[in-house]
C-alpha cells in the first residue's frame, strides 16, 4: 500500500463531522465551521490537541505522586490501625503464595499509569518536534495507550469492593484512604489526555515531507 502520494482529508480541505460523519469541504473565511447537516463544530484536527494533552498529562503526573505516597486503604481492627499505600500493598502481597497477585497489582497500579504518562509525553514531544521517524509504531503505541486506559481502574475497583464488603465492625473495617482519590484522578486524567491527543498529528509531518503532491 505504500504510495507516493498520501493525501489526508485536511490536505484536501475536507472535514469530517465527528457527530454524524458527514464529509464537507472547508469553508472560506474566518470563524468556526459547522457541519451543514448536524451543526456540530468541525475541525480539521482536534483543537489545541497538543496543549490540552500536555495539560492533562501534567495534571495526571502531579496526581500520580500523592496516589503512590498516600494510603489507599485503612484497615482498622480493635487493636491496631494500619494504613497501606499501593506499594506497601504490593510488598505485603509479595510472598511465595501470592506473588502473582502482587505482580498484577504492581503492573496495573504502578507500571501502567506511569507507562501511559511516559508514552503520551513521548508522543507529544515527537509530534511537537515534527519527527517523522517510526510513525507507524507511534500510532500503535497510541492505540495501546487508549485501549489500556480503562483497565487501570482495577485498583480503584478493588479498593471500592473491599471497603464495601469488609465492614465487620467492631472486629474489622476497611476505609478508603486519600490515595485512592488521586489514583482515580490519574486514571481519568490519562484517559482524557489520550482522548485529547489527535493521532493524525503524528502523520501530518510525514505528509509534509513525503506526500506533497507533485
Amino acid at each position, binding site marked *: 500500500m505504500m504510495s507516493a502520494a498520501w493525501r489526508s482529508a485536511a*490536505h*484536501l*480541505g*475536507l*472535514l469530517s463531522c465527528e457527530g454524524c460523519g*458527514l*464529509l*464537507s*469541504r*472547508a*469553508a*472560506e*473565511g*474566518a*470563524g*468556526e*465551521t*459547522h*457541519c*451543514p*447537516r448536524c*451543526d456540530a463544530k*468541525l475541525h480539521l484536527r482536534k483543537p*489545541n490537541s497538543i*496543549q*490540552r494533552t500536555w*495539560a*492533562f498529562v*501534567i*495534571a*495526571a503526573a*502531579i*496526581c500520580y*505522586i*500523592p496516589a503512590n*505516597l*498516600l494510603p489507599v486503604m485503612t484497615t482498622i481492627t*480493635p*487493636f*491496631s*490501625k*494500619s494504613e497501606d499505600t499501593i506499594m506497601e500493598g504490593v510488598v505485603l502481597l509479595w510472598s511465595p503464595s501470592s506473588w502473582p497477585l502482587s505482580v498484577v497489582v504492581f503492573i496495573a497500579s504502578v507500571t501502567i499509569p506511569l507507562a501511559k504518562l511516559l508514552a503520551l509525553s513521548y508522543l507529544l514531544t515527537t509530534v511537537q518536534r515534527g519527527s517523522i521517524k517510526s510513525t507507524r509504531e507511534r500510532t500503535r503505541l497510541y492505540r495501546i495507550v487508549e485501549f489500556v486506559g480503562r483497565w487501570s481502574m482495577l485498583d480503584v475497583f478493588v479498593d471500592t469492593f473491599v471497603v464495601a464488603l469488609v465492614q465487620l465492625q467492631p472486629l474489622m473495617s476497611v476505609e478508603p484512604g*486519600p490515595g485512592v482519590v*488521586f489514583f482515580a*484522578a490519574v486514571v481519568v*486524567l490519562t484517559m482524557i489526555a489520550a482522548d*485529547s491527543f489527535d493521532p493524525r498529528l503524528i502523520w501530518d509531518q510525514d505528509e509534509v515531507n513525503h506526500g506533497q503532491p507533485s
Partner: protein
Amino acid sequence: MANLPDTNGFPDIPEAARSSPKRGRLRLSVVWIIPIVAAVIGGWIAVQKYLSQGPTITISFGTAEGLESGTTKIKSNGVDIGTVSTVRLSEDRRSVIVTAKMAPESQGMLVEDTQFYVVRARISGGTVSGLSTLLSGSYIGIDVGKSKQKRRAFIGLAVPPVVTGNVPGRFFLLKADNLGSLDYGTPLFFRRIQVGQVVAYELDQDGRSITVKVFINAPYDQYVTTATRFWQASGIDVSLTANGVSIHTESLVSILIGGIAFETPATSSVPTPAEPNAVFTLFDNWGNAMKLPQGEPHTYVLVFRQSVRGLVPGAPVEISGIHIGEVVSVGMDFDLKTYGVSIPVTVKVYRHLVSEKLTKGGPDALPTDSKAMIDKLVELGFRAQLRTGNYLTGALFIAFDLFPNAPKATIDWSQEPVELPTVPGELQGIEQSLTNIVQKLDKLPLEAIANDLRKSLVALHQTLTDASKLVKRVDADLAPEAKAALAEARRTLEAAERTFSSTNKVILGPNAPVQQELRDALQGVSEAARAIKDLMDYLERNPGALLGGKRSTPPPTPQVSPAKNGGK
C-alpha cells in the same frame, strides 16, 4: 485557513457552514486549569503531610521483644502519639535503638525527663496489666516529664513505672534491712485500704540496706507524718502474749503477695506532715514498728565479764520490762594484764523516753539534766544486767535496774560512747554463790572430821558388841525366872477373876439383896415425890393456904385436867 489547499477538487462535497468568530482565540487553553488544580491539591496535601510530621526520636531499649518497625505504636494514656519506624541494633550490639515518628502534638512531651517503656502483658504487684497487648502486641508507653528542655534521644526503662507522673500523690523512701517479699507494684496499705505502691527499690551504696521508694496516692499522702511508722505487712504475724495468741495481718492480698502498711502511733504531740521523699525506717512487723520510739537514740557501751551466749544484736534493752532500746553490737576485748575477757556490748537507748519515764513523779525527783540524772541514778545503783529472756532458746536481753547493793561506780563522760556500769547477771550471781559455798566447803577440815568419824565408828562398834553380850546374858539368866513369875501371875489373875464373878452374883443377880433394898428405897422416894406434887398443885390453886392453912373444902379432884395430861 488562508492557505487551504485546493478545495474545489470535490465539487460534490457540501461546504461546511461558517459562523462568525466570537472573539479572538486565547493562546492558552482553559484546560491548563486542570493541572493547576491538581498541583494545588497535591501541594496542599504535601504541605499538610509535612506539617503533620512530628519529630523523630530515638529510644534505646535492652531488648526489642515485641517491637516491630512500622507497627508498634507509642501511646500516651492510650492515644497513639507515634509509630516505631525502625528497630536496629546499637553499634556496640548491647542495646536496641528504636526510631519513632512522633505526632506533631507530642512536641511538648519530648522533654528531658520524659521516660519511655515497653508495655507488655505482665503480672506484678497482684495486678495484671497490659492484657490488651496480648492480642495487639506490645506498645511503647510514655511518662511525660516536667522539664522544659527538649530532648530527642531517650533511654527506655526496662520496667514500666508503676506510677506515672500525672497521678497526684507523693513519694517516700523507706530504709529496710532486706527486701522481703516486696516487688514493683507491691501495695501499700493504710488502715487496710490500698493507698499506694512500691515504685522502685535499690540496694544502698554500702550494700547494707535497701531503699524502697513508695508512692502514696493523693488523698492518703497527708496521713504520712514525721511520726509515721512503716512495716512489712507480708504474711501473718503470730505472736504469743500473756493475753493469748494474737494474729496480726493486713488484707488477704498482702498475705499472698506481700505489702507495706503504715500507721501513725497516737502521741501527745501533733505530728507534722512528712515532706515528699522523706526517709522512714521499714520495720519487719507491726510490733517492731510500734515498739521503738521515734527519735535519735543514744549509744552506750556496757562491758560484761561473763558469757553473753544468747545475746544478739537487736536484743531488747529494757527497764522494768519496758522496751527502751536494743543491742547494736557485741564485741570482745582481751585484757593482757589480767588475761580476762571482757565483752563490750553497744546498745542504743532512746534516752528521752527513759528520762520521761523516770522523772515523772516520784518522791525525790531526779534532775532533768540527762548527765546529772544518770550520775544520780548510777549512784543509787542503776546498773545493766544480762537476763534470760527465753529459757528455751537461751536468748538474753539487757535490763537496767536499781541494785542498791552494787559496788560503787562512776561514769566517765569523756568516753565516747559512754560506758555504763553493769552487774553480773542472775545466773552469774547464782554461780558466784555456789562458788562461795564450794570455797567454804574447801576450807572445812574434812580429813580431821573423817578421822574423828572413824574413831567414833570404832567406839560405836564396841558399844554395840557389848550391848549384844548383855542381851545374850539377859536371855540366859533372866528368862526362866521370868517364866515362873509369869505363871504365878496368871494364877493370881485367875483367883481374882473368880472373886469378881461371885461379887457379881451378890450385887447384880435378880434376887440379890442389894437390889431388893435399892428397889424399896426408890419406891419410897417416888411416893415422897408424889406427895410434894400434890402439895404444889394445891398451893397453885389456893396460894392463901400458905398463910391461912388448909381450909375444909372438899379436896380437889384427884384427876388432872386433860390439858395438863396432854402436856405431859
